[in-house]
């Protein structure tokens, strides 16, 4: 089991309404990622699910049982914090075993579970160390170990990789995905990093100012963003957004096209551009252009492309890949 359902959940801090009303169903075994800019309410929603904040109104169901009035300790969820939040006065063993001790499980069982978790997470050699003697990555593994031994109904991750350096972040990302495959448990993961969201999620929930902008699989959000906000947030480099007369030609207030859907080449519909700057990544080249008709554009070209700043280039926009948005920033669906 491990379904989570939010029903008209709102949250206000004094007079400030941070979550105006959220409805969401999380299926069993799903990896859900909440993504959005800072202050969008993603962590708040996670904390509401966890029970670390009280809902102002609405109901939360875990396995279809209402839990909004239950304390965090009774909800049967586990959480991994950005700061790791390990108990500094306990050894790694003590940290991992703490939840089981609180549940009053027998000693032998606790030892067996701790040993198994430590093995899964490569922590066996560190069981007697204190958290301060561990590296950042190891600390985060202890935090994950603390979560998995309890066999919770669902795992909650609050930006767990933000404090790690880039290389470790990629590695831990893979480990968490592997863990999800092995445990087949429901996981709710909060991040502001859209790359993490795209790579890890079964479904992504894009949040903006406490509201859900769109829920969908990573490819749905990438291919069919339903608003300017989602279009701009998902994808790296960002989608090119063009307003004004050029957009009106397409019957929209704003049009968007991703950098990878602009090709370099000549043709009837080619646009002439001046190269402002080029970023060479080896696998790709990001070329930043200025055009008369469309303003500034970013183009993603595969491999290494010679692009000297100041020279001219002509590019073609893939018409099938142009997204159209109305004046309110909502997508215009093709008739």
């Amino acid at each position: 089991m491990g379904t989570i359902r939010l029903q008209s959940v709102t949250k206000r801090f004094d007079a400030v309404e941070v979550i105006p009303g959220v409805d969401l169903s999380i299926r069993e075994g799903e990896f859900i990622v909440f993504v959005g800019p800072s202050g969008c309410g993603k962590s708040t929603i996670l904390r509401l699910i966890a029970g670390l904040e009280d809902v102002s109104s609405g109901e939360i169901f875990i396995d279809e049982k209402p839990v909004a009035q239950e304390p965090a300790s009774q909800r049967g969820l586990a959480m991994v914090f950005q700061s790791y939040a390990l108990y500094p006065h306990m050894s790694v063993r003590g940290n991992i075993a703490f939840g089981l001790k609180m549940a009053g499980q027998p000693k032998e069982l606790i030892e067996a579970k701790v040993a198994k978790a430590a093995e899964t997470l490569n922590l066996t050699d560190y069981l007697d160390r204190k958290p301060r003697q561990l590296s950042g990555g190891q600390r985060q593994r202890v935090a994950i170990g603390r979560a998995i031994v309890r066999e919770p109904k669902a795992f909650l991750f609050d930006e767990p990789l933000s404090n790690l350096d880039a290389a470790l972040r990629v590695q831990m990302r893979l480990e968490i995905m592997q863990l999800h495959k092995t445990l087949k448990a429901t996981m709710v993961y909060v991040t502001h990093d859209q790359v993490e969201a795209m790579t890890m999620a079964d479904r992504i929930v894009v949040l903006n100012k406490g509201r859900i902008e769109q829920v969908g699989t990573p490819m749905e959000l990438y291919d069919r963003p339903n608003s300017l906000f989602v279009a701009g947030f998902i994808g790296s480099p960002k989608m090119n957004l063009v307003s004004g007369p050029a957009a009106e030609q397409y019957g929209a207030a704003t049009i968007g096209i991703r950098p990878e859907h602009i090709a370099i080449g000549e043709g009837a519909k080619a646009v002439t551009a001046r190269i402002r700057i080029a970023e060479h990544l080896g696998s790709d080249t990001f070329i930043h252009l200025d055009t008369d008709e469309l303003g500034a554009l970013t183009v993603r070209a595969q491999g290494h492309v010679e692009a000297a700043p100041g020279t001219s280039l002509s590019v073609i926009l893939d018409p099938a890949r142009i997204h159209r948005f109305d004046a309110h920033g909502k997508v215009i669906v093709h008739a």
Partner: protein
Amino acid sequence: MARAIPLQRRLFMTILAWAAGLLIFFPVLWTVLTSFKTELEAFSTPPKLFFFDWTLENYSIVQERSNYLRFASNSIILSVGSTLIALAFGIPAAWAMAFQPGKRTKDLLMWMLSTKMMPPVGALIPLYLGFRDMGLLDTRGGLIAVLFLINLPIVVWMLYTYFKEIPVDILEAARMDGASLWKELVFVLAPMAVPGIASTMLLNVILAWNEAFWTLNLSTSEAAPLTVFIASYSSPEGLFWAKLSAASTMAIAPILVLGWFAQRQLVRGLTFGAVK
């Protein structure tokens, strides 16, 4: 890297620090020295600093005239007892203020502290009459209650400052791990706050040990601590400086020793939160 400080300046600062230290310590030193003089020498002008006939007679007379151990045991019971009760109330109170603050938490803390600003003599008469009517005069229970209440604001403040430094994430992690409020306090907060709780306890024991106003006014013999023992040597018929000094030395010795051993803990406790 430490900045190089010129020798002259370092020398000057060292002398200044020693001078300030000696100045503060001088009354204690003088009391101890006087306790080894005869009554006559204790009065002599000019005063003799070290070169006098050292004698232990004051200590034996003081011991003969009054039962030091009874006063001392009362001091221990009153200071430790009131401190433990203050901690029992102070820890949950400080937890609530540090981790579940409300809109009025700051005001509440200020209000608690403001009770320490009132001159205690203002409350003496009502408290004395209340104690008399309830039969609490000269009882250990009554004195423990008073010492506990007058020091509670300081206990709460110190613990609050300490708890504020503990990341709330860790307590939340305990909650997520299924710990009830009680277990969270006992297994997570308390062990992490041990240095803070220890220094709060030490300071409070010292404050309660040295508290003279209430103990002198509300006790006479049965529950009387060492403060009453000292005061009994300053009588209107004539002061016995040497005996008074001997009594004072005996009264402050235990707490001085305790403070000496715990000074690191105390300094840390008093400056905690001041620098990060």
